[in-house]
């Protein structure tokens, strides 16, 4: 697939802090690329450099092989992490205003229908709920029929239902051929939506591949999870090198049968035992040693 956006040796400093340190990657047309990282990892700065909102101290960003310019501005759709909307203006007026900024625009009525904005179309933007606001912001980001869409933590603060609703809409956008660059705190979100992910920490990319490929590359084991009350901490740590969090002992093992046999031998009750594959959150913890939502 052709490359739509190419980032090479990107550096951004704020005083002595190097927020983005020698970051390079490419995004293929029509894919969803996820940028993951804990707070302060540099992902928002990276995405804002790519959006042309901030200027890099070194490195280059090419859109369709050209430096970011007027064409990029006309063809990029952007949804920021914390965008405030103009006050005293209705949803329809916001869409009309933004449609006038671009030479090529979507049909507003169609957008309204697609993003279920009809019921509050003539409502002041100050009176929108979190989910309604996110839908409007996404519709605004799509008003120019973008070829590349930047979504900076689009579901932060949303309830699970609104989050899944937004995922569905992002899938639709991707299905229509739009390239998506997504930053998120939610590993499940990244796994559900992204074809490729890059994990950032301390301004650097520390892992980059398709989600399943990354998991396969880093893990050959599974997690056996037992309630903390069923296996005393001392026993779990000495016998299985288990880690304890959220009221559970987590035992990593490549041989589930052998682990279960050992647990039975130690007379550990298995009524609340769960076995799960390693996920992106585990990968992130392994790579960065940080809780994502901390």
């Amino acid at each position, binding site marked *: 697939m052709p490359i739509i956006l190419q980032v090479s040796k990107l550096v951004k400093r704020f005083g002595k802090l190097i927020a983005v340190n020698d970051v390079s990657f490419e995004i293929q047309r029509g894919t969803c690329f996820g940028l993951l990282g804990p707070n302060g990892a540099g992902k928002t700065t990276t995405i804002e450099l790519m*959006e*042309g*909102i901030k200027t890099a101290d070194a490195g280059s960003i090419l859109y369709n092989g050209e430096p970011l310019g*007027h064409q990029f*501005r*006309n063809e*990029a759709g*952007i949804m*920021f992490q*914390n*965008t*405030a*909307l*103009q*006050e*005293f*203006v209705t949803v329809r*007026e916001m869409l*009309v*205003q*933004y449609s*006038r*900024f*671009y030479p090529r625009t979507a049909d507003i009525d169609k957008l309204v229908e697609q993003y279920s904005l009809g019921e509050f179309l003539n409502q*002041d933007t100050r009176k929108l709920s979190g989910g309604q606001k996110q839908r409007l912001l996404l519709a605004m980001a799509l008003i120019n029929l973008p070829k590349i869409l930047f979504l900076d933590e689009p579901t932060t603060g949303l309830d699970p239902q609104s989050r899944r609703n937004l995922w569905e809409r992002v899938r639709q956008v991707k299905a229509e051929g739009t390239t998506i660059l997504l930053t998120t705190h939610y590993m499940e979100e990244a796994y559900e939506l992204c074809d490729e992910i890059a994990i950032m920490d301390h301004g650097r990319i520390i892992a980059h591949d398709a989600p399943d490929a990354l998991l396969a590359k880093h893990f050959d084991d599974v997690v056996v999870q037992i309630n903390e009350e069923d296996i005393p901490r001392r026993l779990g740590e000495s016998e299985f090198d288990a880690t304890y969090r959220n009221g559970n002992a987590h035992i990593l093992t490549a041989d589930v049968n052998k682990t279960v046999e050992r647990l039975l031998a130690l007379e550990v009750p298995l009524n609340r035992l769960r076995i799960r594959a390693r996920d992106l959150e585990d990968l992130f913890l392994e790579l960065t040693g940080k809780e994502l939502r901390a």
Partner: protein
Amino acid sequence: MWNRIYALFVARNTEFFRDRSALAWSVLLPVLIMFGFAYAFTEDNPEKFKVAIITAAQPGTATEQFKMTRYIKFIEVDGIEENLAKIERHQIDLLFDANTRKYWINQTSPNGYIVEKLLIAAFADSAQTLQQNMVEGDEVRYIDWVIPGVIAMNIMWGALFGIGYVIVRYRKMGVLKRLHATPVTSVEFLTAQIFSRLWLLLVVNILIFIGMDYFLEFRMDGSYFDLLLVFTLGCICLICCGLVVAARISSEEVANGLLNLFSWPMMFLSGVWFSLEGAHPLMQKLAMLLPLTHLTAAAREIMIDGAGLTQVADHLLVLGLSSVVLLLIGAKIFRWE
């Protein structure tokens, strides 16, 4: 480009007209000020006699006796010609040259008539004779004198806070950041803000002008077109001041402080409420650097003296050049975030 400017222009106007508290405040404040002043300065005031006097090297007893009269403010002046205009406009009631004992009064002025009687009484026992001269002119009430300044001041508040606060709030909320992610350029954004504020200020102040004229019947001797031109240029200049203040900062508290730093000296040093004649020369020079001084002076000359554009060309030039310089600075240092 113009499509984008128009979109921003419409959005800002919509926001302004729907923000009822801001709209009401921007109309009510000047109305309240003007009614307050109209009430305060149309009351009878027994201490309004003003006599300009050209002191003699050796003043006689009668002159000294006249100068001791209570309730008269004596102002020492040097020349005659420049003060005749003040008699015409009732800014002084009598001009007395103690060297020649000639005096000038306005024949339509009641105050001039009374002060003349006091002067004649002071010289009744003197061998020296007085020589009367009459000048003619219409009365200029304080309200006539102060109205141009009050309208100019209202423009200043509307321009500085109307544009400065809005841009800072947009920046703080992230509205500017969102606009930066569109093809909108800083020049387009600033142009839209200037146009939006300009027409709002002009419409609001024209309505205030008409309303106040209906109630107070203040003086308007010049051309309405010239006055509109002066107010338009003044609006642009003061809006550009607001742009410079708001070009970089993102804190409303800092914006508030800076806007007050600009507006309060202008309010007191620009001759809105009182003339700076007799003030320290440095203060007078400082006042000439302020756009509000030129806006007030030009409006006053047109409204009270009936001046034309050529007579206020110096003020227009200063306002025009200041606008260009401030706009360039504002655009140069403007930051979206």
